[in-house]
């Protein structure tokens, strides 16, 4: 009773701050209110035997929303008795959605299912006992046979799997402008040393070697550089404690990272990731490192043809490794209608559901038995790599580290950007790792 009370009070405290922040971020607060209304009200008077599920996500625009809608269509066809309620909260990468979600979980008012990056981003929910272990569903549906073992290993926490991944994105992709490469007679660099050689040529010609955006895109660059310089095993060891953050290898990787900043645009901090891609499209810059959602931006938004308007390769030093992130859905403890949520998760994990979703979203299915022919060329190549490459988790996108660890690394990176002091950066990273 006492605990209950304390929890409710705390939820109220968090709730009280949210309106301010939400209005400050000028986001779709109407979505939130409508979704919570539907959850609390007993609106079953009109159709008493229709179950309802409210699925919480931050997919509110572009290919993401289209993907979600396609998935819902599959769901509606299979479970016509369950009404789908879209509880999406606007805001990139879920920053607003997560604040709203935290409040509802604290108040024991969870949605039927919510979106989260598969992996350690879910750790807080798991240790708080707020989401259920879904191992039983993996056994029942035979998903262990159709999802790569490496993925299953990396999203298993304390022996359990707590979410159903619907898609896979690749983080370690370097994008380039083919005409700029032709003009300077350059190839896609396969190591950072090759990049630095190319960068000298490009800079002499007045081209920005590497287009860079705001701070999170630099964290994204950071993780791909660490992967490229340390190698897959050592990089993966950073997250399970088997690689020492204080080692000389990490120092030299950080020095490489530091050197890259000599070849980037000075206005990076004021650019979104799309703006950085735009620099590559216009030919102001030659290269950019971004996850493969950028492919949709090149192909769909800018109507470019692959290999003519844009080209790609694994980021330097990461050939043969697939650095991934994955969006997934969960089963919250105390979900209003557990069976309906499980129905939703079954569709999310099905081949049909994943194909419907991913063609729209511009990502590849987490399963390796999808229908390749319906995907565009880039994604077909990504699917081949996904089933053959070594796997590495993404830090920026929630797979590699807990929220707390990631936040400390983010702060360390931000401080480094002001000072460019590699030694202090490494000290801060070591301290962050030690606190975990």
């Amino acid at each position, binding site marked *: 009773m006492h605990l209950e009370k304390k929890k409710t009070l705390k939820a109220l405290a968090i709730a009280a701050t949210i309106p301010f922040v939400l209005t*400050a971020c000028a986001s779709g607060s109407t979505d939130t209110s409508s979704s919570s209304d539907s959850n609390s009200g007993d609106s079953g008077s009109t159709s008493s035997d229709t179950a309802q599920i409210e699925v919480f996500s931050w997919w509110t625009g572009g290919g993401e929303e289209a993907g979600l809608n396609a998935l819902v269509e599959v769901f509606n066809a299979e479970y016509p008795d369950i009404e789908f309620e879209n509880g999406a909260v606007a805001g990139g990468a879920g*920053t607003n959605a997560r604040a709203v979600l935290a409040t509802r979980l604290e108040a024991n008012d969870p949605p039927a299912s919510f979106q989260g990056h598969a992996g350690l981003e879910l750790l*807080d929910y798991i240790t708080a006992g707020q989401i259920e272990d879904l191992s039983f569903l993996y056994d029942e549906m035979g998903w262990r046979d159709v999802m790569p073992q490496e993925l299953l290993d990396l999203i298993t926490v304390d022996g359990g799997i707590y979410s159903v991944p619907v898609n896979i994105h690749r983080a370690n992709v370097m994008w380039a402008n083919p005409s700029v490469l032709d003009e300077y007679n350059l190839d896609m660099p396969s190591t950072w040393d090759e990049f630095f050689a190319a960068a000298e040529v490009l800079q002499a010609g007045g081209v920005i070697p590497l287009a860079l955006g705001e*701070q999170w895109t630099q964290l994204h660059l950071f993780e791909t550089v660490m992967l490229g310089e340390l190698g897959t095993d050592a990089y993966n060891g950073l997250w399970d404690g088997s690689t020492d953050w204080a080692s000389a290898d990490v120092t030299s990787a950080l020095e490489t990272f530091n050197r890259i900043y000599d070849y980037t645009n000075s206005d990076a901090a*004021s650019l979104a990731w799309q703006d950085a891609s735009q620099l590559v499209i216009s030919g102001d810059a030659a290269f950019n490192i971004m996850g493969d959602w950028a492919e949709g931006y090149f192909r769909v938004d800018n109507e470019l043809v692959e290999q003519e308007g844009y080209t790609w390769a694994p980021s330097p030093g990461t050939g043969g490794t697939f650095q991934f992130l994955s969006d997934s859905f969960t089963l919250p403890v105390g979900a209003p209608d557990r069976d309906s949520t499980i129905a939703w998760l079954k569709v999310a994990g099905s081949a049909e559901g994943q194909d419907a979703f991913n063609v729209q979203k511009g990502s590849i299915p987490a399963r390796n038995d999808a229908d390749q022919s319906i995907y565009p060329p880039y994604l077909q190549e990504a699917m081949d790599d996904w089933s053959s490459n070594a796997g590495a988790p993404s830090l920026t996108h929630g797979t590699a580290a807990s*929220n707390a660890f990631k936040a400390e690394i983010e702060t360390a990176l931000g401080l480094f950007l002001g000072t460019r002091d590699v030694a202090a950066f490494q000290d801060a990273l070591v301290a962050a790792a030690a606190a975990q």
Partner: protein
Amino acid sequence: MRGDSHPVSLIFWTKEGSVIKSLQRHWLSIALLSPSLILLGVFVYGFIGLNINISLTDEVGLNNNDANFIGLENYIKLLDDPRFHIDIWNTIVFSFSFIGITLALGLGLAILIDSKIPAEGFFRSVYLLPMAVSFIVTGVVWRWLMNPATGERTSGLNLLFDVVGLDFLINQWHLTPTWGMLGIAVPAIWQMSGYTMALFLAGLRGIPEEVKEAARMDGASELGIYRRVILPMLKPVALSAVVILAHISLKVFDLIIAIAGKQIALDVPAIYMWQTTFDAYNFARGATLATYILISVAIFVIPYLIVTNRKEKV
């Protein structure tokens, strides 16, 4: 709600007779006030207390029922945090430039408008208009205006400076190392100086013409009248303006997010609090930052309240 007001009145009943009498006289106003007093008590002071309570524990993560009391440890740890140092520096740079320049501009505009210019109403509205815009909108527009790109991609104000030949004014705006907050202060000044002008204008209009006349009769110059008569009489207005601007500047959050997103170089306590609370679920540190913000605002507001209270009693 109505039931709740009873215990409150009971406390008064136990006191001496005069209180009872005044209560009998004022029972309606007390009853009408009590809902808002109770809401205020719970949602403002109750939560301030709850927040301070959390800041004295080690609550981290969503599973926080086993939090331990650790006293002032969070407060001490933050003082050693290099990110918090940047926050303090940024807040100081922003507050001084924003408050100082806004006051000066506001006063200047008020004096100009007060000097019987034609179409006074038009100019007054023009200067006041930015107030009607939210900080988010201001931020988005100024993000474009203060584009720091160089070379062929130069745009916004930098392009304007380039075209009219004021090349020396071209700068990195909010991306200037160390002093980037001055760039953030520019849109804030643009937005709030009109409001400050309105405050000063009201103050100027409140000064009786006779006082100025008397000064002129005594042979004071126009400049002298401003220095010795008008400005001293504007002191209470200036004090109000400082308090209003100070609490805005200490809590600035949306403007920075709209212009620059979350980046450490332009970090302030409010952004650090948001990130550490909702991105990292470090509730204890977030609560500690919130308390520091509260204390910094209180340093400005409480003396002001005491002064005004004293005046009202006299």
